[in-house]
């Protein structure tokens, strides 16, 4: 498993978040999550402008094998979605922390304490491997 980017926050549901300079938050799924799902074939994205609740379903990623919900790690409104995933959902497999980003949110609040640091997420992954 590749090293986790140190500038991101993580969730127990295997999402990652990046706080952008303008205050928005970019969300994707982790390398671990994409590897577990296998080749992605379809991504269902929310509408731009839609409000999402923290912990609520925000998108769906479907692989050849299974469908999985992507939960909103923070509440807020959707300011952008990665439209390129429509034609090329495998971007998530190829580059989960870059071109494979899924949604950008304008958060109502950003409670860092509720999110996992790279070390804490790595610990979670280590436990899964046991």
């Amino acid at each position: 498993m590749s090293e986790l980017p140190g500038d991101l926050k993580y969730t127990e549901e295997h999402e990652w978040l990046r706080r952008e300079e303008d205050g928005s938050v970019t969300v994707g799924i982790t390398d671990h999550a994409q590897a577990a799902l296998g080749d992605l074939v379809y991504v269902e994205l929310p509408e731009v402008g839609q409000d999402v609740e923290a912990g609520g379903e925000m998108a769906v990623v479907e692989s050849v094998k299974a469908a999985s919900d992507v939960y909103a790690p923070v509440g807020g409104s959707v300011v952008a979605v990665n439209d390129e995933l429509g034609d090329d959902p495998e971007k998530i497999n190829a580059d989960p922390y870059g071109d494979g980003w899924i949604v950008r949110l304008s958060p109502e609040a950003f409670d860092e304490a509720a999110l996992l640091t790279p070390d804490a997420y790595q610990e979670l992954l280590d436990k899964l491997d046991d």
Partner: protein
Amino acid sequence: MNPQTGLRTALFERHRAAGARIVDFGGWDMPLHYGSQKEEHHAVRRHAGVFDVSHMTVIDLVGTDAERFLRHLLANDVAKLTEPGKALYSCMLNFDGGVVDDLIVYFFTPERYRLVVNAATREKDLEWIGARSDGFEVELSERPDLAMLAVQGPDARELAAGILPAGSRETALNLAPFFGADAGDWFVARTGYTGEDGFEILLPSAEAGGAWQALLDAGVAPCGLAARDTLRLEAAMNLYGNDMDDATSPLEAGLGWTIAWKPEEREFVGRDALEAVRARPDRRRFVGLLLEDKGVLRSHQRVVVDGVGEGETTSGGFAPTIGRSIALARAPAGDYDRVAVEIRGKLLNARIVPTPFVRHGTVRIDV
């Protein structure tokens, strides 16, 4: 790691060394994929792939009543088999006309046959076949000493012939579809479960590792059960337990073509029950579906036909060769060509299409 270890084929360590993701399948630790199930799928459609299917159950059947017994046991009729090595696909039914299992039977002589049945149904099958064989002069012997490799794809026969025991290459390459032949102490058949040409090879377990490696060295891609499932789905080949089971008639699982109704006096197990289903006008349809809206069909989703009734997908998934989502479905009787499928709470549009969806590398439906 999983503390519970399943049964393992002779190739287990090779799968692990090749980076396979291992899953439980019918009590066996089997490779799901070796990295990308989609690439494995494409390898079989475009070139050649090899599957370890040693978990499948091989049963040899020998005795003076062997033919008479199989004509009683199976819904298809082994009397159709006259040339040595010829294979026949059949359902084995229960008394209610449900499917105990589907299988391949190879004919050698009227006193000697070989059955290949599913791994997950092994115990049930052995018990059922044993019980039915009462009063027949026939001996059943399981062959756990044999490994089984399925080499499939447009280049599969040519590449697989190269690893066969000396002197049997010619015999193997001359096999007609659905025929098998001995190749030294191996057995090679031109059969498969992918919709592509290829061989299924039975060989002594001790020789399986060498054969596997020789195939990989020849450029054949190792493929797991996940690709096997998408390949067979595109080929519209039924999967036992998904598309039919003990409670499902083959007539409602697209398997009517495997039932030998004639001669009428042949009393095979389940015949009476099957005749009753055959006479029912409300018999459910078994159809191929192509999803027209965006999304992914899966097994056991609700199928809704406006004003007609409901059914369910029995196998569904993303079809890598087509780039769309397809399914096999059991649907209510009636004359219609569009249905809705409930996916994650939404009703999405799907169209009934002829099957197979894909055959010999070619998409056969209009998308």
